[in-house]
C-alpha cells in the first residue's frame, strides 16, 4: 500500500505551503527521513521529509504549486505499485483539493467505476500531521476552537495550544481524551525552548477586574490590540563615543553596531520592567522572567522576526554575533521555527533606511515593540549653547491591555537613560 506524502504544517501558523522544489524525482528510491522536497511556509523555506521508505511513485503537485496543509502532494510505495492518482498536475497556484483536481482532470484508472475519486491507498495519515491539523487558533484570531472546559484547562496546564489538537467530540470538540493523547507540541509553539536557567521561566498573573475592563474597553475602541505609542528622543552622543571606543579595542575581533547597543540596552531595561516583558494571554497576562528579543529583519518578500534568546544574559559581543548570524540566515530563509518564535518583546530598526521616526506593529502575544529611527546630528541646547549632537527617536507601541501609559513611560525612561549613559550597561 502506498503512503501519502502530505503538505505538513511546518510552522505554527502555517495554513498552506508552496512546494518550491522536488528534491527527489518519480522513480527514485527514498528512505524514511530523506528530504524529498522544499516547502516555503509563511515564514521560511523548510524541508519536507519522507515518512516512509520506498519509491517515490508520484509527484501529485508540481514545483511551484501552493497546497493547503494536509493535502496530498505525492505517494511513496513499492515499485510498480498502482495508485489511483493523477500523473501530474499543473504548476498553477491552486488551492483545490487533490481529489477535486483529479475529478477535474478525469484521470481515473481504466476499469474503475466512475465516481470513485479517492486514490486507493492506505487510509492512515502520515504520522505527525494528525496532531497539527489546525481547527483554528486557540488564541482566537481565527474561528473559535470548540473544546470542553476541562480540555481547555488541561491544555493550558500542559502548555498545549488548542489549535494544535484535533477534536474527536461532536463538531470537532476537543475533549479530555484528545488532550491526553495529544503529542506534546514542541516548546517553540508555546514559548522559547527550555534551557539551563533555574527557577520559573515566567509568572502567569490573573487578570484583575480593572485589567479585564481596560482590556475589553480598549479593544473595543481600537482593533484587537488596543495600541498606544510613546516616543522618546535620545541623545546618542555618548553611545556613539562608547561604540567607537569599543570597536577600536576590538580590532578585527568584531564590530559593535548601534543596533547591538540598542539590543543590550533594551534587554537590560526589560529586566527592570517585567510589566513590559509580557504576553497578553486572553484570560491572564504572562510576565516573562526571561528576555527573548525579537528583531525584525527585512527579507526580499516580507519580514521575519528572528529571536535572540536570553538577550539579557548575553554580552554585547555575543549579542552582536548572534544578531548578525540570525539576520543573515533570515534573509536566506534558513531559519528553523524555533528561531523565529517565542520572543517576549520586539524591536524594529529602520535607521539604516534613513527613517527619522515610525511606529511598529505589535507582534502578538507580545505587549510591546520598539521602533527605532536613524541617528542624525541635531541642533541641541547644551549648557545654554546650541551644539550639534547625534540624536535618535524611538517609539514604543504598547498593548494597552497589558501596559498602561505610565508603565510604558517608566520603561522608556530607563531605556533612554541607559542609552544616554552606556557605561551603565557594563554594570
Amino acid at each position, binding site marked *: 500500500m502506498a503512503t501519502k506524502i502530505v503538505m505538513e504544517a511546518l510552522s505554527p501558523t502555517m495554513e498552506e505551503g508552496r512546494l518550491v522544489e522536488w528534491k527527489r524525482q518519480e522513480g527514485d528510491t527514498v528512505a524514511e527521513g530523506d528530504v524529498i522536497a522544499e516547502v516555503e511556509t509563511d515564514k521560511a523555506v523548510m524541508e519536507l521529509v519522507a515518512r516512509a521508505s520506498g519509491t517515490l511513485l508520484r509527484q501529485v503537485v508540481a514545483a511551484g504549486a501552493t497546497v493547503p496543509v494536509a493535502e496530498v502532494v505525492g505517494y511513496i510505495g513499492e515499485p510498480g505499485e498502482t495508485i489511483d492518482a493523477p500523473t501530474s498536475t499543473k504548476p498553477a497556484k491552486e488551492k483545490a483539493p487533490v481529489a477535486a483536481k483529479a475529478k477535474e482532470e478525469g484521470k481515473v484508472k481504466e476499469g474503475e467505476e466512475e465516481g470513485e475519486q479517492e486514490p486507493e491507498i492506505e487510509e492512515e495519515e502520515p504520522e505527525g500531521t494528525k496532531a497539527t491539523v489546525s481547527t483554528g487558533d486557540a488564541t482566537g484570531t481565527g474561528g473559535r476552537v470548540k473544546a*470542553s*472546559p*476541562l*480540555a481547555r484547562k488541561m491544555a493550558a496546564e500542559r502548555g498545549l495550544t488548542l489549535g494544535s489538537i484535533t477534536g*474527536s467530540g461532536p463538531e470537532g470538540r476537543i*475533549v*479530555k*481524551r484528545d488532550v491526553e493523547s495529544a503529542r506534546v507540541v514542541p516548546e517553540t509553539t508555546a514559548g522559547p525552548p527550555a534551557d539551563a536557567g533555574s527557577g520559573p521561566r515566567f509568572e502567569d498573573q490573573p487578570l484583575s477586574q480593572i485589567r479585564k475592563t481596560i482590556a475589553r474597553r480598549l479593544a473595543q475602541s481600537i482593533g484587537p490590540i488596543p495600541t498606544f505609542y510613546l516616543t522618546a528622543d535620545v541623545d546618542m552622543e555618548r553611545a556613539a563615543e562608547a561604540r567607537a571606543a569599543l570597536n577600536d579595542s576590538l580590532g578585527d575581533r568584531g564590530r559593535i553596531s548601534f543596533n547591538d547597543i540598542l539590543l543590550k540596552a533594551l534587554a537590560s531595561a526589560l529586566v527592570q520592567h517585567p510589566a513590559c516583558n509580557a504576553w497578553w494571554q486572553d484570560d491572564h497576562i504572562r510576565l516573562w522572567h526571561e528576555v527573548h528579543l525579537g528583531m525584525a529583519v527585512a527579507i526580499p518578500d516580507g519580514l521575519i522576526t528572528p529571536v535572540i534568546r536570553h538577550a539579557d544574559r548575553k554580552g554585547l559581543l555575543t549579542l552582536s554575533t548572534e544578531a548578525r548570524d540570525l539576520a543573515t540566515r533570515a534573509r536566506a530563509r534558513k531559519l528553523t521555527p524555533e528561531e523565529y518564535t517565542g520572543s517576549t518583546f520586539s524591536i524594529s530598526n529602520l535607521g539604516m533606511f534613513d527613517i527619522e521616526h515610525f511606529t511598529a506593529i505589535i507582534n502578538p502575544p507580545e505587549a510591546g515593540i520598539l521602533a527605532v529611527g536613524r541617528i542624525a546630528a541635531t541642533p541641541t541646547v547644551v549648557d545654554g549653547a546650541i551644539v550639534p549632537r547625534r540624536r535618535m527617536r524611538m517609539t514604543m507601541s504598547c498593548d494597552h491591555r497589558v501596559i498602561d501609559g505610565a508603565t510604558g513611560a517608566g520603561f522608556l525612561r530607563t531605556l533612554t537613560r541607559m542609552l544616554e549613559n552606556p557605561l551603565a550597561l557594563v554594570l
Partner: protein
Amino acid sequence: MAIMTYRDALNQALREEMARDPDVFLMGEEVAEYDGAYKVSRGLLKEFGPERVVDTPIAELGFTGIGVGAAMAGLRPVIELMTWNFALLAIDEIVNSAAKMRYMSGGQVQCPIVFRGPGGSALQLAAQHSQAFESWYAHIPGLVVVMPATPADAKGLLKSAIRSDDPVVFIEGEMLYNQKGEVPDEEYLTPLGVAEIKRSGTDVTLVCHSKSVSVALKAADQLAEEDIAAEVLDLRTITPLDREAILASVARTNRAVVVEEGWSFAGVGAQVVDLIQREGFDLLDAPVLRVTGADVPMPYNKFLERAAKIDPAGVVAAAKQVLYLS
C-alpha cells in the same frame, strides 16, 4: 444486619421515634384503624393509642394545617399524606404556613413537622396518581425535601426528619415500599443534606434520587459490561442539596447525567446542572445531560406508560453521549 422492606424500615423509624419522644404523633387518612393505606403505620395504633395515631377525615388542607398549628405549639407531628398527589389540596399550609413561619415571626416560631407519603409514578394509575412533585417543594426556602432510595436510608432519614426543627417534606417512593435491603440493627440516624455514592466509578457520574437510583444502578451495571465505570450518586436530600458531593464526583469523572422521574422543566436535575455548570465549569468534558420522565400527563396504557417513564436504557444512552461514545 436485618433484611427488611422499605415499608417496614419506615415503620420502624416511626415506632422508634414515637417511643423516644412523646411529642411525636402520626396523623393522616387511614393511618390508625386501617393500619395505613400503604401499611407504613401498621401496628402503631395498637402500640401508641388513638391520641398519638390519629385518623382524619379526607381533608388534606385541614389536617395538614392542624399539624402545622400543633408544631407551632411545640409538638412534632408526622402528617401522612396518602399520596403526594393529594398534597396539592394542602400545599397552602405547607408552603405559606410551615415554610414561612420561622422567617415571618423573626425566628420566634418554628415548625418541627414531617409531611410524608408516597410520591412518584406507580403502575397504571394514570395522570392524577403518578406524579413527582419534589421540585415544587425544593423550590421553597424553609422546606427540607428528603427522598430516600433504600430501606436503610428510609429509616435513618425519617428519624432525622422527625428530629429536625424544620418542616420536612419526606417523599417516599411508591414503587419502593416492597424493596428489600439491609438495615442496621443498632439505632442510627442518616444525616439530612448528605448525598451518598451508591456505586463508585470514574467515567461518568449518574446523579439520582429515590426510584431513579435503582434505574441508575441498573444502567451502571449495563455500562460496566462495556468497561464504563459509572458512579451512582444518590442525593437522598434534595434540599439542602449536597453540593460538595456532586462537585467532588464530577471532579473525578468530568461528566454527569442527572436522572429523575419527574418532568424536565425546572426539575431537580435542572438545579443540579446549574450547580455543575456554575461551580464545576472547568471540571466538565461534556455538557451535562438529563434523563427525565416524558413531559406528558402519565398515560394509563402500560406501553405508553413505559414510554413516559425513565429506564436504564435511556440512562446508558445519555452516559455514552457524555463520554463521546455515541
